[in-house]
């Protein structure tokens, strides 16, 4: 393929987040016959959120496999396939259902490499559509990524843009170990620049979405996007916010956060998962334990999900997770010293 022509096209090309994921899946399957898709309604129906789309027609039913409704079965089959050298990519239809697959993910996928002294590995990818905002209530709206970030042996990604969704999925498929990718349902339709070639976004490296000097706002997935929008409004109010998109919460790019806090002296961590015992607590503690502690000029503030199941009522549902207004208010308080 003439690469110059490809570049020229990719400069202007915009895809939705869902299309970017689909493109990555297609390119990975084209490049490596060991890669196959596995999940409920990923085949003929094209996926509950339309992510796999027409892939079943391009690669056939042997490589895009509709499974029975059994998350434990899907996950167990994927672990077995991965150990034998395949590269399974499975979709958990709603990330909430992953509770049924915990044994395979936490006790098997995460541990096998260590239990067998490196003689076996589990190169599998799990895609998990998650998050609230679709009116799907408490059992279809959760953000459970922190659970898995607690498990050594798993990698946990939360891409926020179509570009990262594609690049990180390809990097995850390359990875010799299990990787979980939490995709926020509200991001599937968002659009962004996505190069056509099969590029990789490195796992474990955060992105500075906006540079600033007064306060560091750390978030991932949809919260990184909300933080960016909030930073725009904060700038109009004379507050210079630096926005860090974590992209990966395990491994976490602590260096980028620390360098930013060293500069801004203030940290706001935003995440949709329940605030208590969440990602924000971990980041806050990491900063407090580090030498960057001496550069803090205000308490570290967490903005997290309410300590409640996600409500069905759309007004309450919105109120249960941090919104752009909340980020603007929290960052303003932090910088203007009204934080307590």
């Amino acid at each position, binding site marked *: 393929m003439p690469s110059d022509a490809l570049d020229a096209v990719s400069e202007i090309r915009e895809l939705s987040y869902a299309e970017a994921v689909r493109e990555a899946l297609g390119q990975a399957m084209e490049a490596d016959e060991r890669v196959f898709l596995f999940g409920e309604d990923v085949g003929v129906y094209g996926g509950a959120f339309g992510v796999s789309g027409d892939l079943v027609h391009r690669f056939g039913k042997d490589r895009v496999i509709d499974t029975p409704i059994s998350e434990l079965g899907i996950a167990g089959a994927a672990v077995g396939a991965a150990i034998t050298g395949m590269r399974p990519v499975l979709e958990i239809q709603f990330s909430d259902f992953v509770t049924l697959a915990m044994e395979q993910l936490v006790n098997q996928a995460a541990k096998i490499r260590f239990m067998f002294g490196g003689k076996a590995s589990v190169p599998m990818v799990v895609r998990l559509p998650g998050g609230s905002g679709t009116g799907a209530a408490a059992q279809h709206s959760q953000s459970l990524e922190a659970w898995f970030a607690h498990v050594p042996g798993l990698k946990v990604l939360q891409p926020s843009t179509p570009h990262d969704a594609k690049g990180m999925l390809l990097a995850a498929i390359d990875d010799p170990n299990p990787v979980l990718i939490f995709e926020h349902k509200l991001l599937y339709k968002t659009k962004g620049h996505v190069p056509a070639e099969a590029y990789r976004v490195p796992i474990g490296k955060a992105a500075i979405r906006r540079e600033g000097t007064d306060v560091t706002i750390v978030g991932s997935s949809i919260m990184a996007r909300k933080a960016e929008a909030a930073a725009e409004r904060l700038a109009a109010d004379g507050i210079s916010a630096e926005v860090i998109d974590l992209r990966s919460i395990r491994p976490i790019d602590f260096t980028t956060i620390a360098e930013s806090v060293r500069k801004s002296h203030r940290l706001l961590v935003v995440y949709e998962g329940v605030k208590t015992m969440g990602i924000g607590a971990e980041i806050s503690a990491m900063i407090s334990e580090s030498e960057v502690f001496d550069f803090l*000029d205000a308490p570290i503030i967490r903005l997290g999900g309410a300590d409640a199941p996600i409500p069905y009522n759309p007004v309450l549902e919105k109120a249960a997770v941090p919104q752009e207004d909340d980020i603007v208010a929290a960052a303003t308080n932090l910088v203007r010293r009204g934080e307590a």
Partner: protein
Amino acid sequence: MPVEVILPKVDMDMETGTIEAWHVKEGDLVRQGDTIFEIGTNKAVMEVEAPATGAIRNIKVETGVPISVGTPVAWIYLDGEAATTPSEPAAAAAPVAAATAVSKTEAPAASVIAVAPASSSLRATPLARRIARQNALDLKTVTGTGPRGRIGEVDVKRHLEQRPRCAPVQETCPAPVAGASEGRLQPFSAIRRIVANRLSESMRSAPHFYLTSEIEMSAARDLLGRLAKRHERVGVPKPSLTVLIARVAARILRDHPVINASVEGEATRFHERIDIGIAMERDGDLVVPVLRDAGGMDMPAMTREFARLRGGMAKRTLTPAELGGGTFTISNLGMYGVDSFTAIINPPQGAILAIGRTIDKPVGRDGQIVLRPMANFTLSSDHRIVDGVAAARFMADLREALENPELLL
């Protein structure tokens, strides 16, 4: 937790303040922002507002007594809090005396309402503490303007910018602590900071010159002996050599107005009264209590006053007024076996007299080498207002008076 009401720092160099009047009494209900007392500094009286809403309890400080900045003076109990006596820092309200009078040229510091926290409950961000460490700054001197009086970076930086006379000249600023620091770092005490600032300023702005005279002390010694007997009869403490020299200096200063003078901008202030400061040490700090109107005192009066000042200093009951504002200073290190030394002028004064020990030395008298008790006197003068000849004349009169004290009568 009851909210502490402390004596706030309302002026840049303020170390102590006096509550002039309480506007509330024990048990009164106050609203945040109500005036609760008036604080007096050497410049003004300012109103202090309640930091919280609740009942005033445990008013600890009487009016008119100078106390340290940051001392808790009362507590405000919030609604529903039991009015028990809270744990208080020991000696919280002990009167203190600053080394020297507060400088008269500083701009007022930030907010009167902001409550500077006491050391035990000092609130400061890690960054504020770090910057303070690097600048050897005592955070107790910084007023916090953050939530609950928390000291932040902005407060420390503002304080450092306003820190008087320090920024422009590097060598007198505390060296930043670079990397791993050796030994123990002790931040300046309030008194040490004032001493450091004033003496640095003196060395920087006053061109010092020094005249030394070796003076025979036989007659002065004899006189001290006779005075001791007389004092004993009338119930006055034994006079010391320092007091005798102060008495002699006070007498001859009358004839040397330029030595009993101060620098005031580009003018010389000639003082009518002779107020002699005596440099003393208290717990490692330099303090200079002043013999007011020393020119009008006889030996018994001066001996009594000197004893009173020394006692008050030890008990820390001297007021700032008693510790500042002299017109001339005497520093005697003879009792430590020092032969002679030069002293730094106590600004804005024009001169200081440094006294070494009295020791028998061979001297020539009438063609013979004889032993006589001799002592070195060194006058440091500010050449802006004192010329060499003026200082020399003073030293000549000092020699004559000490060697022939009867001439003073």
